[in-house]
């Protein structure tokens, strides 16, 4: 089967501002994409992934251009033209799409490279898609592969340790500032994978409350629910500072959202209680001058990195190793895809049967030394004939002309039947 049928259409934090990404996330009714995309003609299989930083549709279609056009129209809900939407989306096809998915799953494409949440989100997206019967043979295998690639990268490289330790470092720093976190309050400004991770770590330390502020209130409410916290609007940011002790900011705002002069009067109202600010947004949200204020501790993402003492060169080295694993696994998947045609399948069945035949033959004949060469040849001939006769009908069945869809089902069945793609094989 041709790899060119696999396509990924998506937006992420690099290609689209948060306003655009939000529009594609369908927060009101998460079921919409499954209903709408499923009826798009030509879309054989698909999976819909939506996180804070990305929205992606992974689909399989025999008519990629047309299907893509319709999916894009659905995603943008006719709010902008195909060409305008093109400024924000990326489109990967074939090998590129496979590689992209593996990179997403392994968190190589994340805002914070190596953060572990994305894998869980991808798994959830796949689970939802299977529940809606939206995936088939190709995506089932592709996504499972993406999970195992992510796992392999996590175990073989140190790529994950930096993100985990960054949020761990944030907690360690908070402890060095506040001592006990029990009665402290944290505030998330904007949503992001890393911010949520850090908030989760703080929650585990028994922090009293998590407040979520977001430009769209709805999203703040949704996120606050995850932490049993409360949602506030972004306009309340400064008054809220009087009450919170830790602030994690990760908005997509191009400008600084909190200036030193905003916080200075607040510190008086806080009676100078320490304020720990963590800015993980790019470009940054918080005025660097904030760190000069008494009892205010401002940490950016690089500062947190220096806490965990993972230098950039080392991280880059790990990323290179991870990319190599992705390339390797992509190639393997391409090989598998190639085998998903009739001819390679027939070859594979024959090879498998023949190797069984040969092995059994050798086992039997080695115990029968009294046989003459002629007799041995006769037995061998007989076994070959048996094999050919047994395989005859399955092969005829495979070769029969069918529609694309039937052919795929047939191939999947036969390959499963003969166990040509054992799950644990590379």
């Amino acid at each position, binding site marked *: 089967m041709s790899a060119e049928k696999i396509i990924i259409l998506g937006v992420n934090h690099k290609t689209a501002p948060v306003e655009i990404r939000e529009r594609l996330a369908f927060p009101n009714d998460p079921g919409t994409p499954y209903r709408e995309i499923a009826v798009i003609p030509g879309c054989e299989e698909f999976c819909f992934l939506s996180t804070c930083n990305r929205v992606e549709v992974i689909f399989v279609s025999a008519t990629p251009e047309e299907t893509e056009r319709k999916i894009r129209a659905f995603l943008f809900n006719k709010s902008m033209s195909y060409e305008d939407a093109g400024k924000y989306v990326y489109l990967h096809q074939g090998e590129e799409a496979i590689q992209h998915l593996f990179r997403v799953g392994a968190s190589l494409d994340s805002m914070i490279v190596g953060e572990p949440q994305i894998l869980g989100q991808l798994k959830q997206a796949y689970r939802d898609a299977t529940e809606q019967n939206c995936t088939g043979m190709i995506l089932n295998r592709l996504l499972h592969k993406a999970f195992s690639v992510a796992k392999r990268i996590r175990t073989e490289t140190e790529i994950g340790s930096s993100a985990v330790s960054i949020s761990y470092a944030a907690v360690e*720093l908070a*402890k*060095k*500032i*506040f*001592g*006990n976190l029990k009665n402290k309050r944290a505030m998330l400004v904007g949503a992001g994978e890393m911010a949520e991770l850090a908030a989760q770590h703080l929650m585990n330390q028994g922090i009293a409350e998590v407040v979520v502020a977001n430009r769209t209130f709805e999203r703040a409410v949704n996120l606050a629910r995850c932490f049993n916290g409360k949602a506030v609007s972004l306009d309340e940011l400064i008054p809220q500072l009087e009450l919170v002790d830790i602030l994690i900011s990760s908005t997509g705002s191009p400008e600084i959202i909190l200036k030193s002069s905003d916080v200075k009067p607040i510190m*008086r109202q*806080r*009676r*100078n*209680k*320490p304020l720990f600010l963590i800015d993980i947004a790019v470009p940054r949200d918080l005025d660097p001058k904030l*760190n000069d204020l*008494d*009892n205010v*501790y401002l*940490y950016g993402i690089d*500062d947190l990195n*220096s*806490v965990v*003492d993972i230098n950039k060169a080392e991280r880059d080295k790990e990323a290179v190793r991870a990319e190599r694993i992705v390339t390797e696994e992509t190639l393997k998947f391409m090989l598998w895809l190639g085998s998903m045609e009739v001819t390679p399948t027939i070859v594979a069945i024959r090879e498998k049967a023949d190797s069984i035949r040969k092995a059994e033959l050798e086992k039997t004949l080695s115990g029968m030394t009294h046989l003459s060469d002629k007799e041995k040849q006769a037995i061998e001939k007989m076994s070959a004939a048996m094999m050919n006769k047994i395989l005859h009908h399955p092969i005829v069945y495979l070769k029969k002309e069918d529609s694309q869809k039937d052919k795929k089902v047939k191939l999947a069945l036969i390959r499963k039947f003969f166990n040509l793609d054992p799950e644990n094989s590379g």
Partner: protein
Amino acid sequence: MGYLLFQVTLFAYVLSTAGYMVYFWTQRNEIRTTARGILIGSGLLHTVYIIVRYIEAGHTPLTNHHEAVSFFAWSMTWGYLSFHWRYNVRNFGTFVSPLITCLMIVATFSSREIIPLPPALKSAWLPVHASIAIMANGFLALAFCGGIMYLLQERELKKKRFGLFYSRLPSLDSLDNLNNHCLAVGFPLLTLGIITGSIWAKQAWGAYWQWDPKETWSLITWLLYAGLLHQRFTVGWRGRRAAIMTIIGFSAAMFTLWGVTYLLEGLHSYVG
């Protein structure tokens, strides 16, 4: 007898300080336990030394420089141990014990000669005023150590360069609390020291306050700490500012103790 006891005490303090230093580098708990044990032992020996000295002198041994500084060290030791019992502040001992040892060394080099008490000092107020004033210094010294620790830790947190202290020193919050607790004991003692001194002065010299340099400087010290506490309670001064004020206040206290005696002349000049 007294001298030998003093030397043994000094040696024990040095040993304890060394123990705390080793603990600071290695962070091995058994070393800390040993160092603390030695410090308790030193404190006990020191107490015995003061009692022996009392018997030898026939009056409260707080009249000359040696006695005053030695009692200062003694107050710090027991003040520290009493805090230790209530609050666990990691590596506080590493900062406190060297200061105690330094005081003991200063005491070693000052004359241990017992001078007959001048008539002006013969009063029941002597032990009360002198011991309270010096104990106040002990707690202010502990606050000073806490303040230094706070500044070191704060500096690493602000500069984001994590060196020797980040992992070893406790949180800013507990250092700030420590500072607060030390002052909560030290400041009332300082106040009492000044009041008792004033009453004694009325008795000895006929006036409550004569603006002699020692009195003036203890008032300056008192005002510095009072200002700090006032700011803490009203606008919540804490952290770096409080730590710096504690250090300034302690410098003033030390000037009152030594600077006045050696640099300025006054009624107190014959006292430690």
